[in-house]
């Protein structure tokens, strides 16, 4: 047990201290004694350090050394009490469950349930068109409490939510004024205030709101997935011209023979033969030639429908663009923030 606590303490302290260094010399000695497993010395030095003038960070570290030392000495109630002070000083403090002993984690969790803090207040960075989206806000409250969420920084605070909550809470804020207009650009602060009786805690997150123009949609030159069809089509080659020329010439020659007067002898077919022959030559040439393109009625109707659809869609887009030009694109970005206050 003693070895495991040693390991935990060696791992935990750097994890929770972070990049900032302890300023107070006594506190540094207390941490050294804790690292050397001299818990009585660590306890004594930490208590001594508390009576000295400490900044907020050092004060939190002093309570932290006390909490870890009490945990190592199996004084759980005292460890919980020290953790409560740490949590109140640094509500966002998190212990890595992979690097912390269950005993310490347990004391930390018990301490969390015994203080009222609002932790992990997060505002997502987002872009949306005013009136068509919302900003996601979430936080965790450690005790059942009446929680009021406000946005300050504008002409008047905007009350977003007021609920009795415990644990994680998710909100969606449309970033609109009471009039329905988007909030003006500027720097705001999301304030979450939890209250239980006389006890209260608030956390805040500054955000910056900027306005931009909403992108308009380009007009379509074609409907996706649809293409215009050729409005003419070349019919297949046919023997019909030659056949008709033959029939017409035959009728002319046969008619000449039939109508000719018997008394005048057999009719002359030279003239009909020459013209009919020319006609058959013309029919033969036409038969061999590539037929002329003919209007494709079905394709013409299809293209007309397509053009009507395109015109209608572009009219809708133009109408939508008029509306878009009157809209505002909101960008909400969270800013670095200070810690919670009691």
């Amino acid at each position, binding site marked *: 047990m003693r070895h495991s606590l040693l390991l935990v303490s060696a791992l935990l302290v750097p994890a929770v201290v972070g990049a900032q260094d302890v300023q107070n010399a006594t506190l540094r000695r207390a941490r050294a004694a804790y690292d050397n497993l001299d818990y009585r010395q660590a306890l004594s030095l930490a208590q001594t350090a508390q009576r000295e003038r400490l900044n907020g960070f050092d004060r939190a570290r002093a309570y932290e050394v006390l909490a870890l030392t009490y945990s190592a000495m199996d004084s759980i109630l005292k460890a919980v009490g020290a953790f409560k002070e740490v949590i109140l000083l640094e509500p966002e403090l998190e212990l890595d469950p992979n690097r912390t002993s269950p005993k310490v984690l347990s004391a930390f969790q018990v301490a969390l349930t015994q203080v009222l803090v609002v932790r992990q207040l997060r505002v997502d960075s987002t872009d949306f068109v005013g009136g068509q989206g919302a900003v996601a806000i979430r936080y965790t409250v450690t005790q059942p409490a009446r929680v009021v969420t406000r946005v300050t920084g504008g002409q008047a605070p905007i009350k977003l939510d007021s609920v009795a909550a415990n644990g994680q809470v998710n909100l969606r804020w449309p970033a609109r004024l009471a009039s329905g207009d988007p909030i003006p650009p500027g720097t705001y602060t999301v304030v979450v205030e939890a209250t239980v009786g006389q006890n209260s805690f608030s956390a805040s997150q500054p955000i910056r709101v900027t306005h931009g123009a909403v992108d308009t949609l380009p007009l379509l030159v074609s409907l996706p997935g649809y293409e215009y069809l050729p409005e003419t089509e070349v019919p297949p080659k046919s023997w019909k*011209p030659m056949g*008709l*020329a033959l029939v*017409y*010439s035959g*009728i*002319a020659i046969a*008619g*000449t023979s039939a*109508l*000719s*007067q018997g*008394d*005048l*002898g057999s*009719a*002359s*077919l*030279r*003239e*009909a033969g*020459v*013209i*009919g022959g*020319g*006609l058959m030559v*013309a*029919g033969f*040439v*036409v*038969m061999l*030639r590539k*037929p*002329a393109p003919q209007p494709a009625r079905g394709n013409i109707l299809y293209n007309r429908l397509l053009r009507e659809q395109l015109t209608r869609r572009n009219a809708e887009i133009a109408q939508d663009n008029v509306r878009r030009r009157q809209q505002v694109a909101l960008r909400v970005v969270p800013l670095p923030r200070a810690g919670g206050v009691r």
Partner: protein
Amino acid sequence: MNRRLGGWAVSAMAVVLTAYPANRLSAQHGSVGVQLAFGDYREVSSDLHYRGGGGGVAASFTYKKLGIEGSVLGLTYDPVAGSSATASFKATQLDVRVRYYIAGPVSAEVGFVNRKMKPEFEAQSVGAVRAGARMSYPLGPGVNMGLRAGMLFGSKFSGGGTVSGVGALELGLNMAVDALRGRLRLTGDYDFQRIARTTNGGGGDVPVPIQQAMGRIGLAVAF
């Protein structure tokens, strides 16, 4: 002078043919041209048999369903070998046809024909009103053909005589081929006339039929 004038005429024609907008040409339905004609003429019996050739001019104009075409031709008919005829004669024939489109390929045609012979007594001059029908069919792009049949009414002859109501018939075949994108039109026409003329010199009706088959090949400028 004449050679120079001929050169100017050819040049003017070339300018008209090359400079005239094709789209306007396609919107118009008219033509003027010249024709070469050749024919076979018989009268009274197979012994009076002539063949000849000549030329003339022809014009046509179409507006919507209405069309009009006319031609003036001059032919010189000579007796064929073995014929009892001895003298040649000149025939000048005026044809006018007014056409009205009815439905499908069918159009109705009315008009008149006037054929004068010179010398006057070598053959019969004739004038008559014609009525008939014509079937037209486009063989292909720029190629059209037609077949027509009709009757001649109220025939008058320089030597007298009459024709029964259905005694004068005519039959025709024609074709037109457009060239140079419709600027020029090559035409071919065949006309056959049979007129069952009779005379009465006091001894009863005597049949003196007239029959002419004529072919025409022409070149026209379309506009």
